[in-house]
């Protein structure tokens, strides 16, 4: 009796699944291709799909002003070919509206990044009189260097003050004239057209109280500063000169002119990772600028072998 039960149950399951497979398979293939049965028209129609993703997810979707029940990411299936207005709404973000063209048997993807409505500004320091600020990208995060009347501040990404150089004895004009900042291994330098200053962080962890040092006074306008040679040197483009300054020798006694540019509008870029100097310059008799490259480290080795 029991054996019969199992045999009958098995047969029922077998035939049920076989019939389901035979009946459903053509329907599923038709559906997969994009055919939809319209019960009103009593015929199959060709359709497409709109796939919608947004950053951040969870935006409300409207198709031709009709609310779609599922927030992003979602798929709107069984859409007849045509052009549709799709709107994404999320609280705290600007509405995102776009026209999407749907073709039969095709997927129309919509991948939107929503822009937030900014209401509050997070204050780093309300009472600071900031002249300039720079952001240094780090492997382990970012540092924000702010130049204020009473000192130079170093903030972390969470806007906590982690170090300060004060007093700095820089005039308002000087602070306003700072052109750029460059970070070395344990230090950073900043410069304007005439001067270069250096701030040392410390070897292991950032010192809370930093000291500002003036390390170079230029005779001609400084146009670019780079770290080089394992962060030991500063490569400075001063007018048409390119000089290398050993920053560990603070009296400027170790300084070399490594190249002289032919034109005052020439530009340089020093790649610290490969110690390569890239130069935009004019070489006589050419009247146009060309690009040049000097692998300085390679030169050192070549000269060393000589």
């Amino acid at each position, binding site marked *: 009796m*029991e054996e019969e039960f*199992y*045999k009958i*149950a*098995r047969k029922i*399951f*077998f035939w049920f*699944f*076989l019939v*389901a*497979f035979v009946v*459903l*398979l053509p329907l*599923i*293939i038709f*559906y*997969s*291709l*994009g055919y939809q049965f319209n019960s009103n028209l009593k015929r199959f129609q060709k*359709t*497409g*799909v709109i*796939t919608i993703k947004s950053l951040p997810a969870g935006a409300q979707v409207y198709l031709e002003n009709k609310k779609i029940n599922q927030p992003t990411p979602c*798929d709107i299936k069984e859409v007849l070919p045509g052009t549709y207005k799709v709107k994404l709404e999320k609280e705290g973000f600007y509405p995102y509206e776009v026209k999407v063209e749907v073709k039969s*048997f*095709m*997927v*129309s*993807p919509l991948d939107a990044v929503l822009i937030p409505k900014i209401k509050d500004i997070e204050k780093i320091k309300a009472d600071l009189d900031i002249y300039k600020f720079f952001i240094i990208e780090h492997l382990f995060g970012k540092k924000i260097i702010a130049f204020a009347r009473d000192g130079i501040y170093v903030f972390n990404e969470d806007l906590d003050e982690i170090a300060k150089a004060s007093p700095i004895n820089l005039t308002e004009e000087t602070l306003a004239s700072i052109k750029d900042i460059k970070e070395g291994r344990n230090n950073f330098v900043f410069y304007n057209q005439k001067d270069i200053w250096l701030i040392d962080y410390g070897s292991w962890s950032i010192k809370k109280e930093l000291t500002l040092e003036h390390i170079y006074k230029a005779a001609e306008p400084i146009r670019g500063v780079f770290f080089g040679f394992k962060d030991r040197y500063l490569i400075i483009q001063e007018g048409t000169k390119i000089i290398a300054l050993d920053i560990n020798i603070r009296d400027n006694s170790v300084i070399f002119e490594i190249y002289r540019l032919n034109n005052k509008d020439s530009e340089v870029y020093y790649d610290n990772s490969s110690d390569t100097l890239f130069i935009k310059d004019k070489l006589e008799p050419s009247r146009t600028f060309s690009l040049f490259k000097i692998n300085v480290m390679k030169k050192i080795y070549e000269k060393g072998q000589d």
Partner: protein
Amino acid sequence: MPAAISWSIIFSFVFLIGIAPLWAAIALIVYLMYWFFRLLYMSLLLILAHHRMLSKKNTNWLNLCKKANTDKRFEDIWHIVLYTIYKEPPGVIRDSLSSLKKVDYPSDRLIVVLAGEEREEGVLEKLKGIQKEFIEYFKDILITIHPKDLPGEIASKGANATYAARYVKDYLKKNKIDLGDVLISCFDADTCAHRQYFSCLTYHFLINPKRYRVSFQPLPVYNNNIYYTPVFARLIEMGSTLWQLIESMRDEKFVTFSSHSMSFKTLAEVDYWPVDMVSDDSLIFWRCFLKFNGDYSTYSLDVPVYMDIAVGRGFFDTLRVQYKQKRRWAWGVEGFVYLGMGFLENNQIPFRLKFRKLFQILDSHINWATWSIIISFIVPSVLLWTALKGKDELIFFNLSYINRTIWHIFTFILFICLLISKEFIPPRPKGRSRLIYLSFVWQWFLTPFVSACLGSFPALDAQTRMMLGKKLKFYPTPKKRELADNIVLPAIVK
């Protein structure tokens, strides 16, 4: 032919995606839908089989034997328990005999045969030692040593078992025992019988009016060394057990596998197991099927036998051992050729039945060799390819959706497998951390990868070798346990 079909299926998907992507997508949807329904069907069969197993768990088979009102008397039945042995450590054989002496069946009706191979050095001394140790618990323990390199034979379990069975026939005749009253159980050396195995077997033999036209198949549970094996080996063998459980529900497709039992009279009539083929366990069924013109079946017994998970010397060696063992199992596709040739010479079996049986072998072996490769590798590769190519056709989008659905169903089935597999996990031995149970759960998530590496790949390998006319040597799976010989694993104390 099976290899040609398997490779054609795999390559047709690969080529089609390059030539006609749309048709490839349709073909994959058909394939996935087929597996969607097949997996659902199989999971229901698994649940049914499990239910049946549990419903008979507390049956007292010995009582039923004694009360059975048939033309045969329980008291007249003899059992030959034949262990084929090749290089198994004595501890493994001792464990098997220890479990045998604990069965509830009258021990004076059990005759044990230890069938050794001459190829194994010192086998006679090993078996004699075991014989001496266990002789008092059984009616008799016979030792046979199968000579090596007999003409017309390959070195296989079937050849050894046949040699031993011929010897047993003489022994039975000498002792005036009617072959019709004798049941023979051909066990691997590591097979530990359930306490009620012989009672259950005897009962079903007694009450079956076609008792000489049926083989009896216990559920092979690979768990003797389950706490000492790498996770992939455990998973694949647990999968084999659950697969056998599913197969046991499909009477008309059920074929003998590994350790099994049958009437000695029938065995002698079909001239025993094949001696020149690798898959003796399934071929003995097909041999009977041909001999009795299709009037032969396999009956699923409600009690299991416990066996070892094949292991090697380490992780990678176990992988090698498992691969070779599965390739040997997959060599069972030779049954297709054997049966096909047999059908040509047999006019008594109806064509419809012939076709069904051949299709049955072909279907199972081709699916074995292809399904996990297609589902685990080809479909994801096609989806990745379409994504990289930026294919915007809706059918690829829906293929991805159907594929996800299949994987959800698959996860659901794995959950069922996880619950059912609990039944086959023996008590945790001392010295094994409870944390091992966590691996018993997460192991199921390796199924797609393991079923491809130790399922489809060895099957495809076996089929390809056969197609290329290469021979497969019988690979005797190493039976090795982590513990010392004198320690009885808790798993066998059932």
